[in-house]
């Protein structure tokens, strides 16, 4: 019974007006959640957490850098799952969501690279090094930009999305490379400090702002992605009746 309900709900999402309503309904809540968690997270990160015994206050960059890096990778995985569903079942709303992941993921990758560079200068003495983690992360940024470019290059948006979805799946190979780069190669970048399995190498007093900032960035990703997906759907369906009804105030 529950499975049947889920199946019906999933099929309903394929209907453009229903999906559009979802893109209008969810983002305000996600943005509100982002604002609350980010404000508390920033307060803890900048004011409550003590300085690191080795890095001093510079370690506070971690509260931006690490959540951005995690979400940049997760955004790509989400985009790849959506791209696979879009290619197999040809569900347009899923296709649109996959394509809406790319600009947000690109922004987070750029944020991760920029904050990494700003952290690298005082800690490593250099803004940039061609080491495995940094280079594979740069490749991720180029992948995101490539996907956005490819999608925008086609006049037929659906054809563009299909081609871009194939590139998304090809680029998925870069995700394990990024994750394991610090183990497979000798890199300037440090190994994992936070472990989901096993004991973390970070003091527990430093964890709460990291958890909050991670949640905040995830909520932001959801909100921004749905905002973009709603716009894309509206733009693609500009000649459809449901858009006229929506413009007339009848959603």
């Amino acid at each position, binding site marked *: 019974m529950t499975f049947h309900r889920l199946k019906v709900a999933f099929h309903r999402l394929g209907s453009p007006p229903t999906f559009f309503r979802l893109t209008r309904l969810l983002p305000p809540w996600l943005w509100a959640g982002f604002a609350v968690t980010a404000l508390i997270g920033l307060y803890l990160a900048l004011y409550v957490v003590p300085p690191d015994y080795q890095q001093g206050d510079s370690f*506070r960059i971690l509260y*931006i850098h690490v959540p951005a890096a995690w979400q940049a990778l997760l955004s790509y995985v989400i985009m790849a799952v959506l791209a696979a569903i879009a290619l197999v079942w040809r569900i347009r709303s899923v296709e649109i969501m996959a394509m809406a992941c790319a600009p947000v993921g690109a922004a987070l990758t750029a*944020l991760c690279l*920029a*904050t990494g560079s700003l952290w690298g200068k005082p800690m490593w003495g250099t803004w940039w090094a061609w080491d495995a983690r940094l280079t594979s992360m740069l490749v991720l940024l180029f992948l995101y930009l490539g996907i956005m470019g490819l999608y925008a290059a086609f006049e037929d948006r659906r054809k563009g999305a299909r081609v871009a979805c194939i590139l998304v799946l090809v680029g998925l190979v870069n995700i394990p490379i990024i994750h394991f780069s610090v183990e497979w190669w000798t890199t300037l970048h440090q190994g994992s400090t936070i472990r989901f399995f096993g004991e973390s190498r970070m003091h527990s007093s430093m964890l709460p702002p990291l958890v909050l900032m991670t949640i905040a960035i995830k909520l*932001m990703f959801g909100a921004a992605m749905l905002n973009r997906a709603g716009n894309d759907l*509206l733009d693609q369906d500009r000649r459809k009746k449901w858009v006229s009804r929506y*413009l007339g105030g009848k959603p």
Partner: protein
Amino acid sequence: MIPQFNYAFYIWSSYGLFAAIMVWQFLQPRIQRRKILAELREQEALKSGGYHDTGA
């Protein structure tokens, strides 16, 4: 108690970048949506014959 935030340029730049990117992620879809809606309303007005070009 007033917090003392005497942090270095590197730290403020990172948090500043974070703020700028979050604001952009919030604003950009809204700007884009406004543009699309304006185009769609113009299109609807043209279709229904109620379009008045104020610049003419």
